[in-house]
């Protein structure tokens, strides 16, 4: 088992390298990082452009640039942006923002999604099942930027009704906030409510559909009947024997869902003014910055493959029939 997981990891390192190289090459081929400089009015002297050119190693072949950049990455140095800022510091900050933004929403999304799914399955074709189905399709067919904007609007109305600012909808915390540790936490939480809802709602909608069908598969199964025949009440049999088994196919979904969410939440980040990884990627593209794009790509690749690895581990832990 350990050997298998180690081999998998080695495989993943190669995949990460390939993905990053492709992003790096694509960026290098299509971006014109000197464009902004050249477009200035009055035009900067040729020597300045040449210096920038040399600084960015634009004359070297792309594979050589990639190797040089990757060499730095191995030592923890992700290079610098075209404006000369070190990427490594920014990466840490951005990843932190994304993690703080998405961790709570994801956990909430998974937990509520599973519960809603299980409840729908048990009460199949009842009013609550139809309500959950309607909610899911409504959320899934609404673009996330609309959900975010609506939430923001709702927050605004709530604040107006309350007469004070209950929920914040911009940034991570109030700038220049003064107060104790608990007050700071409360401030951060009130900033977190709306974006967390934006993230959780779509996750609940998605996971509840999958969980519902996984649970329906299990509901008719013989082993559930056996558990009841043993003397477990229906509710207990459903949760101990049914849900435990129905969670197995969800493990993969959860693992990958989290990995992709951190980078896929561009809209949520932008709407609520959280400057995380998704926002950074867009910024990198706008700035024609190969290093930022490659760094974000590497980050995503690592996260996705780690999720894959995690789902394997989860699977093996949940399902005794899987022996790796």
């Amino acid at each position, binding site marked *: 088992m350990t050997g298998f997981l180690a081999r*998998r990891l080695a495989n993943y390192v190669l995949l990460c390298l390939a993905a990053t190289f492709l992003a790096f090459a694509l960026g290098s081929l299509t971006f014109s990082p000197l464009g902004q400089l050249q477009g200035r009015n009055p035009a900067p002297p040729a020597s300045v452009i040449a210096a920038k050119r040399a600084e960015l190693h634009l004359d070297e072949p792309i594979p050589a640039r990639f190797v040089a950049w990757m060499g730095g990455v191995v030592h923890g140095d992700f290079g610098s942006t075209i404006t000369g800022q070190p990427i490594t510091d920014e990466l840490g900050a951005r990843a932190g923002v994304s993690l703080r933004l998405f961790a709570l929403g994801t956990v909430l999304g998974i937990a509520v999604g599973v519960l809603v799914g299980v409840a729908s399955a048990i009460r199949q074709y009842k009013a609550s099942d139809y309500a959950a189905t309607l909610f899911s399709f409504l959320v899934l067919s609404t673009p996330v930027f609309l959900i975010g904007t609506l939430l923001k609007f709702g927050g605004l109305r709530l604040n107006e009704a309350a007469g004070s600012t209950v929920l914040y909808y911009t940034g991570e915390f109030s700038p220049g906030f003064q107060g104790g540790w608990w007050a700071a936490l409360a401030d951060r939480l009130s900033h977190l409510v709306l974006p967390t809802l934006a993230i959780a709602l779509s996750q609940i909608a998605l996971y509840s559909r999958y969980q519902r069908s996984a649970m329906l598969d299990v509901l008719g*199964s013989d082993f559930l009947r056996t558990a009841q*025949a*043993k*003397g*477990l009440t229906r509710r207990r049999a459903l949760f101990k024997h049914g849900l435990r*088994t129905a969670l197995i196919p969800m493990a993969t979904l959860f693992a990958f869902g989290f990995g992709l969410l951190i980078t896929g939440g561009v809209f949520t980040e932008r709407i609520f003014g959280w400057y995380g990884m998704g926002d950074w990627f867009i910024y990198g593209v706008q700035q024609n910055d190969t290093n930022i794009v490659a760094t974000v790509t590497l980050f995503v690749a690592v996260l996705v493959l780690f999720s894959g690895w995690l789902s394997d581990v989860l699977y093996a832990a949940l399902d*005794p*029939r899987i022996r790796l």
Partner: protein
Amino acid sequence: MTDHVTEPVLSVDDLTVSFPSEQGRVTAVRGLSYRVSPGEVLGIVGESGSGKSVSSMAVMGLLPPQAKVTGSIRFQGRELLGRSDVELSQIRGRRISMIFQDPLSALTPVYTVGDQVAEALLVHGAQSRQAASARAVELLDLVGIPGAARRAKSFPHEFSGGMRQRVVIAMAIANDPDLIIADEPTTALDVTVQAQVLAVLATAREVTGAGIVLITHDLGVVAGLADRVQVMYAGRTVETAPVDEIFYHPRMPYTRGLLASIPRLDTGPRQPLIPIEGQPPSLVSLGPGCPFAPRCLLVIDHCLTTEPDLAPVSDTQRSACHRSGEAAPPAPLVSGVECYNTVSHSRVVLRVEHLVRHYPVRKGAILRRQVGTVRAVDDISFELREQETLGLVGESGCGKTSALMEILNLAAPAHGRIEVLGTDVSALDRRRRMQLRRDLQVVFQDPIASLDPRLPVFDVLAEPLRAHGVATTEIRRQVPELLRMVGLRPEHAGRYPAEFSGGQRQRIGIARALALEPKVLVLDEPVSALDVSIQAGVLNLLSELQTRLGLALLFVAHDLAVVRHIADRVAVMYLGKIVEIGPINAVYTGPQHPYTQALLSAIPIPDPAKERARERILLTGDLPSPADVPSGCRFRTRCLRYAALTPGLQSRCEQEEPAREQRGEDGHESACHYATAHAVL
């Protein structure tokens, strides 16, 4: 049992269960009443759809919520109907427990078997977790799981079907219940394992003293185990009596029909079976009369208007038939199926020599390497002659189907030689192979899965003809003829497979196989998915077609009684080898190989007196994995004869693989170093 009249442990009165369905309300159980006394085994017999399982689920309170249940179910004097799930869960598993049909899916895959047995104790008692686990190990030991302490930590998928059913039984007896409901407990198991599990069930009855409701379609199982039998048809009891009365003096025509329609191990070959014509009625809209009337040979006008009540015909026997009071029932008419073949000198149509089919077992996701070999078919040889039926029998996993597929492949096997109609298949080119396929056709086990649900019957039958370039006008002429040949009507051609019953679908499957007028018909368990009354009709059809068309049949089955009925010769397979082969009578009356003897001995005979008098050869353990075949004789790990030998003689079995040798007349061969004929029937 005590002398005074005992209070029944379970009394069911006027139980009615109905379900909503798309066609309307299905009344699956219609006014069922029965009693079970403490320590008594009540056998409930009936075909699929007769309501036997539904009624037992009603007793357990495990029917889906949309089921409407009325009547009364009293357990030890307490009414169970209408109790809440919480109240019932106090009784379930403690006072009443249940054993289910399919052991493969009856256990939760993610918990160890020890935990699952212990759970049955924990939900009903204040025992500590340790005490429950220790008791679980004792229970697993009691039901015959070797190395119970170690195996308790294994997960269900690490057990064979028979072992899992033992675990389910261990769970059922954990709390010393007063009533055990066993719903087709051995239907999914091989015969040798069935014999083991039935023995465990008998032990469970002794240990717990519980009343047992044994639900089954297999009259043989009932004959051996039940004290009293109740026959169900269309949601009602049609006859109930002590076991001997049911088997020797059945009054209800349906009971008689059932008994006449099962092929028996203890009668000679080629006795025509008497099928019950027609289909069980739909339970959506039953007419006023006796539901069995449309299929009944003794039907009178009164039957069509009034449904008979279950009325006593003697002190102990009750029967639901207007004519049960009449003295001797007239013998039903049998359409003559005379089909004794003289086949010994006819032409060989299929010759298999030293056929081998091994599957590699690979491991690893990236660097796949071979870690073992599944020896599915390991050097088998046999011949099939014109007009002859060769039965190929063995338990699941013995390589029957692998051998069939290898033959049907019509390509050069990895080792050995296959000759069809005198042609070595390895020498065929594409065109010749296509031509030869016409002569070798197949009928599959599952009549539902083997017909394309989107093709009307006409196209199903026309397809093989079109593939072989038969002209459209000719196809139009042949299809109605084919339908008539298998006992269907030509106007059925426009219908879809879903509109037919299981038996009719299997007839369509046979018609499709016959479309190209083959010389050899290969049948892979053709009747094992059918109810007994339907099975008889299909078997009769096959016999009749064989005589009429001069077919050679290679008939693969696990049911030795069916094979005795239809085959001229039989080959017994064990772990990829043929251990015994010979004329049907010689093998069934004087089996030489200890495996054949055990196999024959394990099959229950639908005759209570014979069943009681029989001495069973109970094999120990399960079939070894074909990936890990024992050295020397591969049967020795389960062989009773080997176990009885002195160590000096045993070493031969361990080192030397026995070759098949002729030990009787007419090519009766067996592969055992110490073969002696021993009648077990």
